[in-house]
């Protein structure tokens, strides 16, 4: 159990997917304009990450390895991710059409979020078991969510300020993200898996 908690903790803070490993930067910049949107995005990505890591683990261990077709790993993971993104989009448009509208193209783009495929591949490389794989996915999702929510709440404040014109929008967001990742360096050296 401690092992599982440690997996989440390490994936969320110490090796934060976004701020330390620099995965999934596209949605970080795209979907962090407003806190509500960021929250929706964080939840959707979390759902995709968890479903995808569970599904890809099952496919790998139940189909690919027994039938000795491991070279299909990448392409079948992509298939799984695509499907779970589609499912999440359907779910979101049902639960909150407003959020669906606000997030727009960024929901389908979760499929191309390298963090998602990254989690699936890292799980497979690190030879984690099912529970570990799911917790790792969830931890990555928590880390992504934390980064996204913090950045969006900061952006709501900075966007209202008198920022020099060349730095308005994406530049200042990237600088903020950079300083965030400096702050997250404070977690280096913490116990991790």
């Amino acid at each position, binding site marked *: 159990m401690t092992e599982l908690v440690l997996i989440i903790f390490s994936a969320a803070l110490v090796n934060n997917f976004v701020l330390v490993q620099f995965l999934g930067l596209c949605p970080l910049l795209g979907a962090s304009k407003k806190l509500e949107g960021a929250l929706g995005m964080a939840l959707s990505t979390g759902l995709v990450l968890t479903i995808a890591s569970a599904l890809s683990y099952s496919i790998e261990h139940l189909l690919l390895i027994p*039938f000795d077709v491991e070279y299909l790993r990448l392409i079948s993971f992509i298939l799984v991710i695509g499907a779970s993104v589609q499912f999440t989009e359907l779910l979101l448009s049902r639960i909150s*059409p407003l959020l669906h509208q606000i997030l727009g193209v960024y929901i389908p783009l979760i499929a191309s979020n390298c963090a998602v495929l990254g989690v699936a591949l890292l799980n497979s490389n690190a030879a984690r078991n099912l529970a570990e794989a799911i917790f790792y996915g969830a931890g990555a999702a928590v880390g992504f969510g934390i980064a996204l929510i913090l950045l969006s709440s900061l952006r709501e404040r900075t966007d209202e300020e008198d920022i020099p014109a060349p730095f308005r929008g994406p530049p200042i967001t990237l600088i903020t993200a950079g300083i965030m990742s400096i702050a997250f360096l404070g977690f280096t050296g913490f116990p991790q898996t």
Partner: protein
Amino acid sequence: MATATVIFAGIAIVLAILLIVSSHYLSTTENEVIDKIESLLPRIQCAQCGYPGCRPYAAAIVTDKADINLCPPGGNETVRRLAKFLGSDFSPVTKYSTTANLNEIAFISEELCIGCNLCLRACPVDAIVGTHQSMHTVISDHCTGCRLCIPPCPVDCISLVSRNA
């Protein structure tokens, strides 16, 4: 090779079926979004955006991805609000130079009006009253200053005046 093909196709088919089933249960309505966007528009129904009214424009933004900078009466302020709500980028209104606004309302000159009824039909908010062959008038509290009544008037008897005058 054959196993690989079968397995891959199998995964794809199973996922496809799951998605089709879930899409059947998870159908969506977009009315809520349209309502919200409509409430951000000035709603003076001037049709200058190219859509017959504010609601059709709101619907177009949601479904057809129409540009958000087509509303001249709302001006850049409205674009800013829409951009903030939709999380898209701001670009200034370019469509018209003179715009309809709530501070001006239509006024029908008594001497000139011939009671042709054309303006009455053009008014989107029923702010003009009058009947055939007699003088028409504008209910100032109802008029939104959309200027749609001006082009149809055959005798050019409609002008715009300040709302408070």
